[in-house]
């Protein structure tokens, strides 16, 4: 899961479970997140989220509180400090409180879930986020999505609408990608019901169960898709669309789940793709070769296939002497994402031509 907003170096694998969870939970805008652990765990994440928001033109302060454990809290147990910090969080009148654990409190066995279970009039929801248990950024995202989903019950009736599940809130193109999905869904006449979780209020979460389909950001979120299907009865598509053919298949799959004939939508999208590719006629026939974005970084697992597909569509030849094209991470979303990717290719190809 990517938590680095820079499009030029957008790979961050593994990482801290807590950071992953907070990238989701801070999008419940009327909630406060309590981080049970040393102050540094909170400070580090506060800085990262704050800086990322600023880089994405959002002037927003993440609503985080730390229990600020020190050695005595570790020796004698931190449960009292957690109680106090939850009370402090409640004094800010949040609509919900999320309580995140850290490595050290899980090590000493503080019972975070038991403390949260006490009735306080406002939902206080534990989110397991101790990274040393082997989890990574993505584990935090999954745990947080499931925890937030616990605030939703099954809907009385499904409406013809879709939820976006687990958007990468820290990625540079998060809103552009959502707009692309919205555009594609509109071809099928399906509106977006909920961006789960992005820019929500606690009450909005109640709508989670009323969509006809959940669209996961990426296949790694399948366990969340399964969980939501089981709890709320909503089937899911396991990824935002990638690639030319993949985008058309996406329309077909959403159509199949929602009982809509997608053939016209697919036809229209193919025409749209042809028109998009037509804008890159000037680089047709060029030589390119694909490489990892950086020696220290891996590309998206599916990136190479997408690049090859686009190269074929534009009649580019793959040649070791061609313009060096970094494999994208994450893979571009939908037809619009491919358009932005090809735009970068054009820049690189022109640079190479100029020598």
């Amino acid at each position, binding site marked *: 899961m990517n938590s680095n907003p820079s499009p030029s170096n957008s790979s961050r694998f593994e990482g801290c479970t807590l950071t992953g969870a907070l990238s989701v939970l801070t999008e419940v805008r009327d909630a406060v997140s309590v981080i049970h652990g040393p102050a540094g765990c909170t400070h580090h994440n506060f800085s990262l989220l704050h800086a990322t928001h600023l880089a994405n033109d959002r002037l927003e302060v993440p609503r985080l509180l730390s229990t600020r454990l020190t050695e005595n809290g*570790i*020796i*004698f*147990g931190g449960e009292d400090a957690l109680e106090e910090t939850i009370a402090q969080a409640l004094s800010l009148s949040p609509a919900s409180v999320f309580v995140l654990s850290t490595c050290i409190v899980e090590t*000493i066995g503080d019972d975070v879930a038991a403390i949260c279970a006490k009735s306080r009039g406002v939902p206080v929801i534990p989110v397991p986020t101790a990274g040393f248990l082997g989890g990574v950024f993505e584990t935090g995202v999954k745990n947080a999505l499931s925890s937030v989903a616990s605030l939703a019950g099954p809907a009385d009736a499904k409406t013809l609408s879709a939820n976006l599940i687990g958007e990468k809130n820290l990625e540079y193109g998060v809103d552009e990608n959502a707009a692309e999905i919205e555009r594609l869904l509109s071809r099928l006449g399906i509106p977006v019901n909920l961006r789960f979780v992005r820019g929500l209020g606690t009450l909005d979460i109640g709508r989670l169960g009323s969509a006809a389909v959940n669209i996961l950001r990426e296949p790694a979120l399948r366990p969340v898709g399964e969980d939501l299907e089981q709890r709320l009865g909503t089937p899911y598509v396991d990824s935002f669309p990638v690639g030319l053919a993949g985008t058309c298949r996406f329309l077909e799959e959403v159509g199949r789940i929602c009982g809509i004939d997608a053939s016209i939508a697919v036809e229209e999208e193919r025409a749209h793709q042809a028109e998009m590719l037509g804008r890159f006629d000037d680089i047709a026939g060029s030589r390119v070769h694909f490489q990892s974005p950086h020696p220290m970084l891996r590309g998206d697992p599916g990136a190479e296939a997408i690049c090859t597909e686009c190269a074929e569509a534009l009649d580019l030849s793959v040649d070791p002497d061609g313009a060096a094209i970094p494999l994208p991470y994450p893979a571009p979303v939908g037809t619009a994402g491919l358009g932005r990717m090809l735009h970068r290719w054009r820049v690189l190809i022109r640079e190479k031509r100029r020598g």
Partner: protein
Amino acid sequence: MKQIALYGKGGIGKSTTAANLSAALAGEGLDILQIGCDPKHDSTRMLMHGTWIPTVLDLIRERGDESITADDVVYRGFRGVRCVEAGGPEPGIGCAGRGIIATFQLLERLDALKGDVIVYDVLGDVVCGGFAMPMREGYAQEIYLVTSGELMSIYAANNIAKAIARLSRRVRSRCTLGGVICNAKNIEGERELVEEFARRINSRLIAYIPRSRVVQVAELQKQTVVEYAPESDQAAVYQELARTVYGNETTSIPTPLEMDELESFALEFVQV
């Protein structure tokens, strides 16, 4: 300064042995510090005539570690033995092992770790790194395993031998096994069994403490045997132990038994 630590299964008589050892050492005119490293904090109670002294961790919890002085944590008991109890968190919460580490750091800062002999009396098993603290560099150089002839007790002693072997592999480590003390339960052939166990882990039996009623009677009087019945045979045993430990210059790196070795050892010695 000699620093020794007593380890052994819970309830085996470590604290009784440690307190009598300290009392006997003090009888030789030595300046002794005994540190109880068990959240139960009853190591020094007989030396303190039944008084529960405030533990280091109670004081840290109540008023933070900034204002604590050596006088707040070190108490003089029988024969001037200086007594410290580490204490611990409430049962079932927090991290007692980290508590031991914090206690040692505070005692270092207060410059309280001094005397002719420091006796560390440690919890039943080396359950985590914190309880191996007394074995680390700068603390006890000699570990004494206290065990009876009961298999569970020997099993625990073998585990502690594993910890000693592990720590002694470290660079600059001075932690060694000083010997095995048999605190007898009056089992048939007990002395031979513990002696053989000690031999097999590359150590030796340095004292055999017979079971004696006077230990219980002294305890009811809230005294060590050395104080309550100084002329008794049992007191003589502790005095002999004190002389042996103080003069001990033969230590070893233990070779703990594997589980199957321990089992076959048990079969050899225990008459079913």
